[in-house]
């Protein structure tokens, strides 16, 4: 198998006295699709936020493409990463949020163009072309000049995905991207994710409560329980055949709701 593009090595995270993650070890390989499931509060969001540099681990290492994300070498010693170091390392990572977080003062097209132009200093015309292409791909080819407030939740989330894709990340993180949506809008968003998963070769980590969906697209499923990954394997191993009791209870409760 290829070298992992991301490695978590014994990563711990506490908020104050509360230990949220207790020793996470995880490899993410290029193009791998990973689904993270688990009860509310088990730390799923925190795992991916640390990789996006939105939350700093309390201890342990996260290695991205061979470089330590949160630590850097300075005169022979490993010290806390600077903003500059974080920017260099996180460039290949993108994220889609539960509440979209579109920029409300920009049109849909500008939402997708701002970062490639200002962050990657790419040519404006090329970026426009790519942004247009992405928006068409997510089915919003007629909305370029709309503002986020004029869109439905499902449309907003599709814009958020286009915005992340225009940056051409090697790793995409999805944090329960359908759970703030009205039920009838969930399908259109899942369709887009499915399309990305099938046709793009980036690694994806999806925190999700959509079990059937996870079963369908994930190469690997992780069950997170009270800050520990207690089960991992292929979707059918974890979701259909595991004998782990807490996982069974979780799945059971879940399917009933």
């Amino acid at each position, binding site marked *: 198998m290829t070298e992992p593009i991301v490695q978590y090595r014994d990563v711990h995270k506490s908020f104050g006295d509360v230990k949220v993650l207790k020793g996470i070890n995880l490899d993410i390989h290029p193009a791998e699709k990973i689904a993270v499931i688990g009860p509310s509060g088990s730390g799923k969001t925190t795992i991916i936020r640390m990789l*996006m*540099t*939105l939350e700093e681990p309390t201890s342990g290492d996260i290695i991205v493409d061979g470089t330590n994300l949160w630590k850097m070498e300075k005169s022979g010693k490993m010290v806390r990463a600077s*903003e500059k170091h974080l*920017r260099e390392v*996180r*460039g290949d*990572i*993108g*994220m889609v*949020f539960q*509440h979209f*977080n*579109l*920029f*409300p*003062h920009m049109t849909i097209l500008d939402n997708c163009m*701002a*970062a490639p132009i*200002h*962050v990657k200093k790419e040519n404006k015309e090329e970026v426009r072309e790519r942004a247009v292409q992405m928006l068409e791909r997510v089915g919003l080819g007629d909305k370029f000049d709309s*503002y986020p*407030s004029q869109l439905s939740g499902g449309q907003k989330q599709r814009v*958020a995905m286009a*915005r*992340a894709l225009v*940056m051409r990340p090697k790793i995409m993180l999805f944090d329960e991207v359908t759970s703030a949506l009205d039920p009838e809008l969930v399908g259109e968003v899942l369709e887009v994710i499915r399309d990305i998963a099938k046709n793009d070769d980036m690694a994806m980590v999806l925190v999700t409560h959509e079990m059937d969906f996870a079963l369908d697209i994930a190469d690997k499923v992780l069950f997170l329980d009270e800050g520990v990954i207690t089960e991992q394997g292929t979707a059918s191993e974890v979701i259909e055949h595991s004998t782990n009791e807490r996982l069974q209870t979780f799945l059971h409760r879940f399917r009933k709701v």
Partner: protein
Amino acid sequence: MITINAILDIFPQLMRGLGVTVTVLLASAVLAYLMAFIAGLCRLSQNVIIRKFTGFYVEVFRGTSLIVQLFWLYYAIPMLFGIQLGSNWWTGVIAIGLNYGAYLSEVVRGSILSVAKGQTEAAVALNMSRFQRMRLIIFPQAVRMMLPEFGNYTIQMLKGTSLVSLIGMTDVLYYGDIMRSTNLAQAPLIYLLVLVFYFILALPLIWLTRKGESISKKGVASG
């Protein structure tokens, strides 16, 4: 008829003060906005010294009255330090500008802090630098939120300019006072017209504030 004649007498007199009132307002507004952004951003700086220093400026100017600050600049500073602030006009502009700049810097700071955290997070996820996040994402939204308060404070600033008549500036109120002192019986009418005069000057500001309110309702994620 007598009243109409009186009004026709008084109004042109008040008009003579218009230039001073308007120029003091415009100049102190520019200074106040400038101070507001400088101090507002400095108070969010990561540098403790910068933060404390601007905090001191803001609290001093908010915690004491404008008229005392005006007198300090006009009488005390030249005596104590031998510094002349140029003309009376400049003294008035600096006092009003610094005073309202202090208030408005809190508006700037508050608006920046009230842009939703998710906006910063999305910008981080797009790998923007701290400066890019501020310039492209946070600041444009914060400015929209500031507009109504900036309008309100500018209206207050207009009213505040009348204090410069106390340091010998010939503004609208000054000419009103002059007329009153020569014709005491007309005092009610004179001051009524002074009120009307300031109100007319405030009208465009009131209109702009309304406009600001409707703009600020759109295009921001706060929370």
